[in-house]
């Protein structure tokens, strides 16, 4: 297999490096993390340089972009130490560009251009998540209007977003597969209230509960795509989302590894750098093996997507492996740093925290087994 980057990929990564150096240095990321703020100015810079419209149709200012290039970019941004730094908003926008009305498309593209997070994904409920059949948030259609009632929880970046892309059930439809539709609900609509959830990771993205109490909106403004097709529409970009998360884990784990290896080379104990001791070398070696495996997994999965090959269990396997291994790499990196690693301001502590979140964000390690395991058994039946 040829792992050589194309000239275009090399130049794009080189451009991204310039942008990262200028707009997203470690001091910027550390400050965002400390103050629990979103990387708005960096996203705006990404947009101005054309990175935030890669993969969009040309009529919306975008241009075609393959999955391999997208994961290379996501990996590089996250290698800078920024969690969820690239790709996820782009995928979100794809949902609207594919299924939304013209007005919805223009609104979401405008928000992206200003570095804003266009919307949060309202999918998880107190009694539902991966088990979408247990979803209870309702959307009642009447007189050209839709009235929403229900609760979403653990919704990422909702307080930073202008909209909630909520999945809700029509209570009059019996077939659960046809009951769920996708809606774009303004976060400031009457009846929408939020409760911020304090958490120990992902400080650059808030999490909250969202309560929808008789939120009533015109159907033509809020319905995204076809009524009853919400789940199908949502699933459309899930494979790519898992892949972007895997690339995110790869980049952050590489960042932790680089920091730890550099620290091991300069931290002196017993008269020599701790990198000279075999126990440290064993850690670094196993970390390097995991990174190599993660990289191969991510690139191959992207390559399969680009060739239209059926992914089957590949996306879930890739996401599970990279989330788990990425955290293991960060954990070993933290161990190499010792006490210094957990002091406030040490980058490795942030990477450790943020990588832990990917073991459940975008689907838990366990649900990935559920997805992949079923497929594996089916393939061998």
């Amino acid at each position, binding site marked *: 297999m040829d792992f050589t980057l194309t000239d275009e990929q090399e130049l794009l990564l080189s*451009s991204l490096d310039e942008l990262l150096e200028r707009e997203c240095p470690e001091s910027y990321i550390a400050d965002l993390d400390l103050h629990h703020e979103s990387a708005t100015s960096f996203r705006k810079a990404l947009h*101005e340089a054309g*990175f935030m419209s890669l993969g969009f149709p040309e009529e919306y200012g975008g241009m075609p972009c393959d999955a391999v290039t997208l994961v290379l970019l996501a990996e590089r941004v996250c290698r800078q130490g920024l969690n969820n730094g690239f790709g996820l908003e782009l995928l979100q926008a794809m949902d609207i560009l594919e299924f939304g009305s013209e007005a919805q498309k223009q609104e979401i593209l405008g928000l992206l251009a200003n570095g804003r997070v266009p919307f949060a994904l309202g999918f998880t409920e107190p009694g539902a998540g991966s088990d979408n059949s247990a979803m209870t948030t309702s959307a009642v259609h009447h007189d050209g209007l839709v009235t929403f009632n229900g609760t979403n929880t653990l919704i990422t970046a909702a307080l930073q977003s202008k909209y909630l892309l909520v999945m809700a059930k029509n209570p009059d439809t019996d077939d659960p597969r046809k009951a769920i539709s996708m809606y774009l609900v303004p976060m400031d609509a009457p009846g929408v209230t939020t409760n911020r959830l304090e958490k120990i990771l992902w400080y650059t993205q808030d999490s909250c509960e969202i309560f929808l109490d008789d939120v009533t909106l015109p159907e033509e403004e809020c319905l995204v795509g076809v009524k009853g097709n919400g789940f199908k529409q949502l699933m459309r970009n899930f494979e790519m989302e898992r892949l972007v998360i895997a690339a995110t884990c790869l980049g952050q784990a590489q960042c932790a590894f680089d920091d730890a290896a550099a620290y091991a080379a300069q931290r002196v104990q017993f008269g020599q750098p701790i990198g000279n001791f075999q126990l440290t070398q064993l850690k670094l070696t196993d970390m390097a093996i995991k990174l190599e495996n993660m990289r191969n997994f991510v690139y191959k999965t992207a390559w399969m997507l680009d060739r239209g090959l059926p992914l089957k269990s590949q996306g879930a396997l890739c996401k599970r492996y990279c989330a788990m291994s990425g955290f293991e790499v960060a954990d070993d990196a933290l161990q190499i740093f010792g006490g210094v690693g957990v002091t406030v301001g040490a980058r490795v502590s942030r990477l450790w925290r943020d990588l832990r979140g990917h073991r459940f964000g975008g689907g838990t390690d366990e649900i990935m087994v559920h997805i992949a395991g079923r497929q594996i058994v089916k393939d061998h039946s």
Partner: protein
Amino acid sequence: MKIVVAYKWAPNPQDLEVRADGTVDEARGKPAVSEYDPVAFELARRLADETGGEVVGLTVGAAAIDTPLARKAALSRGLDRLVLVADDALAGADSTRLAAVLAAAVRAIGGVDLVLAGDSSVDVAEGQVPLTAAAQLGWLGLGRVTAVTPAAEGLSVERDTPAGVAVLAVRTPVVLAATADAVVPRVAGMKDILAAAKKPVEVLALAALDVPAPAVTLATLGTAKPSGGDRRAVLFDGSDPASAASQLVGALRSAGVL
């Protein structure tokens, strides 16, 4: 207005290793547009957009500077077309020789109003090439340029000199060397990179430029690492912060820093 951006395709210094004897190992140096040159690309593009002009990239050097990647890297930075002089006879050439070839290439391009360059190259950093090229061309040459805008009879050029900021009315043709912080250059996006492959490139033969062989060539007799300074590695006990701060100030005063 026809603007030439003279730039260098040089190894990235972050990839280089300085050997113990002070010589630089460039084997792992990934080449790129020299770090101080994108500012010249940006100034040129803005000026051309304002005046309806053309921006022509120009670089000279060994044959290795002419690769598809090198062409696209330059052309994706806002050039309309590219001119190259790539010949192994220029490998290791000193700045006077390179400036002579650049000047000859500018003449060959013809009708050039302005040559813009970075202040110096990222690898050699002598800062001599732009002004030597100006001398070769017989044109006015100005360094330390921080801004350039079109004016009624030529250009308005702002320079940041040790004596202060000077704003000059300059007639063309002229060679300007811009400071690294004159403007924030845009980064090339995917559209720019893909478009680069379709832009025209002209390779000029060194022999055809008829540049006289240098009468004197440079011979490097020795190299040494820059002095690392006299590090004293003084440690203060930080258990009493006020006392530690006072000791630090005292030490800096005695060292003559404060």
